[in-house]
C-alpha cells in the first residue's frame, strides 16, 4: 500500500525528527549544518529582442547618430561609461553597480544563427544550440545535471514564471513559481491537509509520465516552502522593487535565496522589447522598459546583501535590432546585442568584447551589428568559473568551448 506510505510520511513529518524527512531535505539540512552554501546563477531573458544599441550606446560612433535620426540618445543625456559607450539614462539604477565594479557589459554578443524569428532565436539561445531545433533541454538545466553534487533540493532550478522555460527544461526537475503567495494547496479549511495529502498521493502514484514527475516536484517544493511567509517579506537594505513583472520575480527570488531552500539556478523573463514603432529615445517605450529592468536588478542586488558573493546574474535577449531606425521611429529585427553580467566575482565597470563598428561594410548583412562574441562563450565562462562545471561540451554540445576565448569578466 504505497498510498498509505505517503500518508504516513506526511503525518509523521510534524512529529518525528530528521530520520523521517525526505532524503533531499535531510541532505540540505546537513549541507547547511556544514556551511555548504551554494553558488547561484540567475539568468534573465529579455523577450522580444531588446535594442542593445540604445541600451549600451556606442556614442563614439558618428554613424550611430546618422542612422538613428529620431531615436538616438543625445550625448548629453547618456550616462558615460568609458568615453565611447554610455548607458541609456533610464539605466540610472545600474550605474552605481557599474561604478562599484560589480556590473560588466558584453557588447556585440549573440547567436551566430542568422534567424530573425523571435521564436526560433529564443529557442536557440535557451537550448544553447543555435541552428539545432531538435534539442529538447536547456543549457542551464544541463549545467546542473553535470554537477556531480546532484540530488539535492527540489528547488535547485527555479523559474519565476508560470511555465518552465526552455532554458530550464531537462533532466533536473525545475519548479515554476509565478507567485509565492499562491504556492500552496488545499486552502485553509479543516480538510486542507487531507486534500493536500490526497493530491500528493494521487500524482505520486499516477501512471501519467508527464503529470507524475510534475506532481512530485511540486509537492516536494511545497513541503520545503511551507515555512515561508511571502506576504510579510521585507526586502533588506532599503531595496525597493518596481511593482512590475521583473521586480516581482526578483523580489521573490531574493526571498528564496535568503531562505536557503537550495536554489542553484534561477530564471526570470521580462517581455515587451519588440519596439517596431515609436521606440523613443531618452524617453519613451524603450526607456520605460529599461527603467523597470535597471531598477529591478538594482533592488535585487541591494536586497541580497552579503549573499551577493554567491550570486552571478546574466542577462540576454534573442537578437539585437537594426542599426538604422525604420520608417516608424522604431527598429526591426537585427543580429548582435548586449549582455550584462553582475556578481561578486565580476570584474565590472567595463564593456567587454571587440567592437565591430557601425560603418556599412562592418555591419552584418549590411544592416545589423555584427557578432564578435558568441553568447555561449559568455555563458560558458559563467558556468565554468562560477558554477564550477568543467564538462562544458555537455552544456553546449557541438560548440568548441575554449577558455582562451573567454572574455575574462569573472575573476579566476
Amino acid at each position, binding site marked *: 500500500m504505497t498510498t498509505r506510505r505517503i500518508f504516513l510520511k506526511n503525518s509523521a513529518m510534524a512529529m518525528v525528527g530528521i530520520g523521517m524527512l525526505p532524503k533531499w531535505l535531510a541532505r540540505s539540512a546537513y549541507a547547511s549544518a556544514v556551511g555548504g552554501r551554494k553558488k547561484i546563477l540567475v539568468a534573465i531573458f529579455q523577450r522580444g529582442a531588446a535594442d542593445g544599441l540604445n541600451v549600451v550606446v556606442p556614442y563614439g560612433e558618428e554613424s550611430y547618430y546618422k542612422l538613428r535620426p529620431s531615436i538616438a540618445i543625445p550625448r548629453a543625456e547618456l550616462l558615460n561609461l568609458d568615453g565611447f559607450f554610455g548607458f541609456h539614462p533610464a539605466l540610472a539604477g545600474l550605474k552605481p553597480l557599474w561604478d562599484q565594479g560589480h556590473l560588466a557589459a558584453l557588447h556585440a554578443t549573440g547567436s551566430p544563427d542568422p534567424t530573425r524569428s523571435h521564436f526560433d532565436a529564443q529557442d536557440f539561445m535557451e537550448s544553447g544550440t543555435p541552428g539545432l531545433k531538435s534539442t529538447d533541454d536547456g543549457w542551464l538545466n544541463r549545467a546542473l545535471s553535470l554537477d556531480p553534487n546532484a540530488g539535492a533540493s527540489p528547488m535547485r532550478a527555479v523559474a519565476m514564471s*508560470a511555465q518552465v522555460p526552455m532554458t530550464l527544461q531537462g533532466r533536473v526537475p525545475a519548479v515554476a513559481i509565478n*507567485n509565492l503567495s499562491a504556492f500552496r494547496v*488545499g*486552502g485553509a479549511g479543516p*480538510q486542507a491537509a487531507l*486534500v493536500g495529502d490526497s493530491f500528493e498521493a*494521487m500524482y505520486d502514484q499516477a501512471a501519467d509520465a508527464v503529470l507524475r514527475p510534475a506532481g512530485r516536484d511540486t509537492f516536494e517544493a511545497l513541503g520545503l516552502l511551507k515555512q515561508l511567509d511571502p506576504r510579510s517579506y521585507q526586502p533588506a537594505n532599503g531595496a525597493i522593487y518596481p511593482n512590475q513583472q521583473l521586480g516581482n520575480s526578483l523580489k521573490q527570488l531574493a526571498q528564496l535565496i535568503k531562505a536557503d531552500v537550495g536554489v542553484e539556478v534561477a530564471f526570470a523573463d521580462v517581455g515587451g522589447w519588440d519596439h517596431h514603432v515609436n521606440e523613443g529615445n531618452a524617453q519613451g517605450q524603450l526607456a520605460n522598459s529599461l527603467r523597470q529592468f535597471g531598477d529591478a536588478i538594482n533592488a535585487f542586488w541591494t536586497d541580497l546583501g552579503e549573499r551577493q558573493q554567491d550570486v552571478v546574474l546574466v542577462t540576454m535577449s534573442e537578437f539585437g535590432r537594426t542599426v538604422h531606425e525604420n*520608417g*516608424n521611429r522604431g527598429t*526591426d529585427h537585427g543580429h548582435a546585442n548586449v549582455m550584462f553580467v553582475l556578481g561578486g566575482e565580476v570584474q565590472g565597470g567595463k564593456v567587454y568584447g571587440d567592437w565591430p563598428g557601425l560603418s556599412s561594410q562592418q555591419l552584418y548583412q549590411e544592416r545589423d551589428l555584427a557578432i564578435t562574441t558568441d553568447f555561449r562563450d559568455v555563458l560558458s565562462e559563467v558556468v565554468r568559473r562560477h558554477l564550477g562545471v568543467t564538462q562544458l561540451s555537455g552544456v553546449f554540445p557541438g560548440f568548441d568551448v575554449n577558455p582562451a576565448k573567454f572574455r575574462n569578466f569573472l575573476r579566476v
Partner: protein
Amino acid sequence: MVKAAVRWAGWTLAGGALAAAILAAQAPAAAKRLDSQQQIVQALNRLTWGIAPGDIALVQRLGLKNWIQQQLHPDKVVENPELADALAPLATLRMSPAEMMQRFPFGNAAKNARQDAAAANRKEETDAQAKLAGLLTPEQLAGISTGNPRQRVMEIESLPANTREAVLAALPRSLAQPLNPWLPLAQQRELVARMNPRQVVALDLLDSKVLRAVYTNRQLEDVLTDFWFNHFNIYIRKNLDRNLITPYERDAIRPHVLGKFSDLLLATAESPAMMFYLDNWQSVDPDSLAMRRRRAVAKPGAPTPGINENYGREIMELQTLGVNGGYTQKDVTEVARCFTGWTILQPRQRAAFYYNDNLHDKGAKLVLGRVIPAGGGMNDGLAVIQILAHSPATAHHISYQLAQRFVADEPPPALVNRMASTFLQSDGDLRQVMETMINSPEFWQSTYYRDKVKSPLEMVVSAVRALGAGVSNPTRLTQVIASMGQPLYAKEPPTGYENVGAAWVSSSGLIARLNFAMQLARDQVPGVQVDVDALAAGATAAPGLEQKLFQALLYEQASASTRSTIERAVASLPNQAPALPVQIAGLVLGSPDFQRR
C-alpha cells in the same frame, strides 16, 4: 460489451468514410480498439470544450457520425438559448469599431473621460453614505456594507427591485469593488461602466469567451475560433487593439473557421486590429507620393516614415509558410513592400481598413521567386495572400498546427500529409481539412485517447461543464485561467499560445488547478453555481458515491491510483458527511485523469 457490439454494427451499416477509417484503425490490434463509448468520449474531448451532462446521450441519439457532421456545419445546430441570454449584458460584443472608438476613446478624449470618472467617484464616496442611508434601514445598510461579499450580494438581491437598483447606482467604489465577481453580470457591468469605463471592453470579451465555451451548442466552431484566433494572435493590451480585438474575433476570425483559408488570411490582413498589432498600418514606401510631399514641407533632416517589416515577416513565419517554409530576409522586405498602403482610416475614430495608393511602393517585387509587376497597387498584397495561401508549405504548416491541437502533441506525419493534400486539393477548404483529420484512423487511435493535457482554458471550462454548473458571472473564471498561465487575449508575442498540451504542465499551473478544483466543487467560485449533490444523483455514501462521481466527471472508471487515493480519503472522513460528495468531486477534478482530454 454486447451493447457496444450492437452499436458498432449499426455504425458500420451506416457506412461512410468515417466508419471505414475507424475500422481500419482498429484492425491491427483488437486490444487497442476504442469501444463505442470511448469513441464518443474521444470525439467530445477533442471537438468540444468538455463533456457536459447529457452530451454522451445526445451523441448516442444522433449517432456519432451525424453529430460530427452537425458540428462541422454549425448553422445546422440549434443554438442554446441560454447563450444569448448570458451574452445579452455584454453590449460591446455587438459594437462596430467606430462605435467602440466613440464610446471608449483614446487620446485626450480618453484622458478627459477618465478624469471625469475619477472626480465622480470621489464625490460619490462622500455622498454615498447619505444617499444609502436615505434608501435603507440601518440594519439593511449594515447588511450590504459588512460581512463577506457573497452575503452582501444576497442582501442586495433580497431588496425590492426599485430599492435594489437605486442602491446599486449609489454604491461607492469602496463598497462596490469587492462585490464585482459575485454580482449578476448585468449589474456588475453597470458598476464597472460607471467606475472604470475603459475596463468594459476587455471584461466583455473575456467573459464572452468563457460563456460561449460553457454554453454554446456549436462547440466545434467555438473551439476552432479559439484555435484560429490564437493562430492569428493579437494582443488586447496593445493600445487601439483594446477596442479592435472584439470586432476582429467576431468579423475576421469566427465567420471563416470552417471556410477557405485564403478568406481567413485576407480577413485578418485587412483587419485594422492585425494591421495595428503588427504595425503594417504605418509601413509606407519612403519614396511614395505622400512621403515626398511630406518631406517637401518637413524640417530638413526630419525623419520620414518608411517600411516596417513586422507584418511581412510574421505573415510568413507564423501565419502561413512556417519558419522553415523557404523564405528569406529578402522575401520579408519584398512582402512588406507589397503591403505598403494597407492602412487604417482614421484609427481613433472610424478605425476601418483603407488602401492608400499614395503610400504604396509602386515598383516591381519578387516574392518567393514570383514576379509581382510594377503598378499593381493593392493587388500586390492580394497577390501575396494568394501565393501564401496556396503554398504547399502553408498547407503543411496549417495541417500540422491543427493536428497538434486536435490529435497529438507530436502529430503523426502520415496524418499531417493527408490533411495537407486535402488542403491543396480543396483550395484550402478548412472544413474539408477538418473532415480529413477526423476521418483519419489516427484520430481514433487508442494511443491518443485522453492523451492531450488540457490547457488552462480547457481545464476550467471542462470542469464547469462536467459539473453542469451555471455561470452567472464568468469574471472570476477568467482570472483563474490567467493564474494557471493563460491570460486570455493577453499573449503578447504573435506566436500565440502553444498547441502542445504538455507545455502547460508546471508547478504553478498544477497548484492553481488543484486549488480551483476544490474551490469549484465546494461552490466557492464567485459567479458559478455548482450542485454536486445533484450530480451524485442520490448516492450519499461510499462506495456507490465515488463510482457515481467517476462516471459523471470522467465518463469511465478512474485510474487505479486516483481511485485508491479517493477511497482512502473517503475512508478517513465520517461516512455520509455532508461535504463528502463535494470533497470527492474536487479530488476528481484535480486528479491527473481530469487534466487530460
